């Protein structure tokens, strides 16, 4: 355990009675004394504060930084307006996904947030391929997420300007006297903010937020059930190097300008595979899955077309119990012919086949402030 990295909030988590677990090389809170179920429900009802400082924060600078980044991701970077953020992903030569990320146009630079487990790989990948771009990993800042229907009211008490932001807006704002880089986004399906705060003032900000009676600290356990109900992918489970974005049902995240016929079509790793997949379709898709009954179907549960067929037609990529849905929820990869909502499939759980229905995502409606 001793070689695990700690975020700046480590002592705060321990004082709050968090159960700490190793995650992507960091010691992180999986739950607080409230427990996963109540943490989840609290976030959907009021506001939850998440320590996501293990994630990578990167600044990209250079005269042609947007065009350069378009050589690594299939998103429209050049067309992203100032003070706006967009979801994206690095692709590999076979069209698979190396990591997913958020990137924001902050005027004279691009600010990017990447997954903790992929941080080193992403940085090496960018350093190898982004000529003429200055790549700076930000290590003197922590990252907090404040999520839930009361997030706006809570954060407005520290700075009323946050209320004017819309979903995926970014701004530089003062909170508890610190220069914070704020985006109106998150990973729960709820309205909320992600806040990059200097390490020196991070504890003060977290304490100011937690002092609000609407706010509870939320661990990784509820973060996972919240994002799963929201139909949001977890890198390494619902997408990986072997799955292209069309198979991962992330077509919406590839803007028209980067597709065949667009002004800047292709030009990213695996573009042949991905553009062809967009044109002609794919053999398998990521879908939502609703298991019947109460038993959760977790990652790697095999899926079959009928109760007795021997040919596996898919598998669960993420699954668990959805506290808001009050039942099990899952996502998985299924064969093309079986991905329409309403299709009944069978998951094999402890040797028994249990019915599971293909469902459109998300399981819980998104509450973004558009």
């Amino acid at each position, binding site marked *: 355990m001793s070689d695990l990295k700690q975020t700046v909030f480590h002592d705060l988590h321990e004082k709050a009675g968090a159960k700490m677990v190793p995650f992507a090389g960091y010691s992180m809170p*999986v*739950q607080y004394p409230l*427990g*996963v*179920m*109540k943490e989840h429900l609290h976030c959907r009802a009021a506001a939850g504060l998440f320590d996501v400082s293990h994630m990578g924060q990167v600044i990209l600078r250079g005269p042609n930084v947007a065009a350069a980044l378009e050589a690594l991701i299939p998103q429209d970077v050049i067309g992203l307006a100032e003070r706006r953020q967009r979801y994206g992903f690095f692709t590999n030569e076979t069209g698979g996904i190396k990591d997913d990320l958020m990137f924001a146009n902050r005027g004279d630079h691009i600010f990017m947030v990447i997954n903790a487990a992929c941080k080193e790989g992403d940085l090496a990948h960018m350093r190898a391929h982004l000529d003429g771009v200055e790549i700076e990993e930000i290590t003197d800042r922590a990252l907090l997420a404040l999520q839930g229907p009361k997030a706006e009211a809570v954060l407005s008490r520290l700075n009323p300007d946050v209320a004017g932001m819309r979903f995926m807006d970014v701004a530089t704002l003062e909170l508890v006297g610190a220069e914070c880089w704020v985006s109106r986004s998150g990973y729960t399906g709820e309205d909320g903010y992600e806040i990059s705060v200097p390490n020196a003032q991070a504890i003060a900000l977290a304490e100011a937020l937690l002092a609000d009676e609407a706010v509870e600290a939320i661990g990784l*356990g509820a973060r996972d*059930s919240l994002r799963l109900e929201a139909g949001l992918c977890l890198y390494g489970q619902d997408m990986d190097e072997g799955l292209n974005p069309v198979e991962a049902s992330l077509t919406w995240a590839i803007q028209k300008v980067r597709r065949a016929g667009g002004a800047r079509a292709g030009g990213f790793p695996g573009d042949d595979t991905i553009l062809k997949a967009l044109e002609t379709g794919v053999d398998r898709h990521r879908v939502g899955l609703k298991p019947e009954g*109460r*038993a*959760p179907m*977790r990652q790697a549960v095999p899926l079959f077309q009928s109760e007795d067929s021997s040919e596996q037609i898919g598998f669960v990529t993420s699954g*668990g*119990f959805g*506290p808001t849905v009050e039942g*099990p929820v899952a996502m998985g990869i299924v064969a093309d012919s079986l991905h329409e909502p309403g299709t009944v499939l069978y998951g094999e759980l*402890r040797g028994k086949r249990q019915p599971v229905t293909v469902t459109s995502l998300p399981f819980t409606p998104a509450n973004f402030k558009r």
Partner: protein
Amino acid sequence: MKYTEEHEWLLADGDLVTVGITEHASTQLGDIVFVELPEVGTEVAKDDEAVVIESVKAASDILAPLDGEIVEVNEALADNPALVNEDAMGDGWFFKIKASDLSPMDDYMDEAAYKKMID
């Protein structure tokens, strides 16, 4: 009441033994969302997998602590698995077993020994 190293509790009334998990175990498992109970009438051998518990975190197996026949299961857990978190030592019991051999009971811990183990 007797306790196993697997954090089960056993309450014997003659050869009829009620089995559940300890409060300590239910706390460690976190919120329990599903309990798969054996069918009444099932003959089990000691250390057979008898119950599957799913918490928000993971699935765990509960082993039969004795040889015998499952004669009753706690049907209330089907609709309300959270009973295990709320009252692990009482209303959150799993099953009653008619033991064919009570001798392992002598090897199981009393409350003092169990408390020492979990400290």
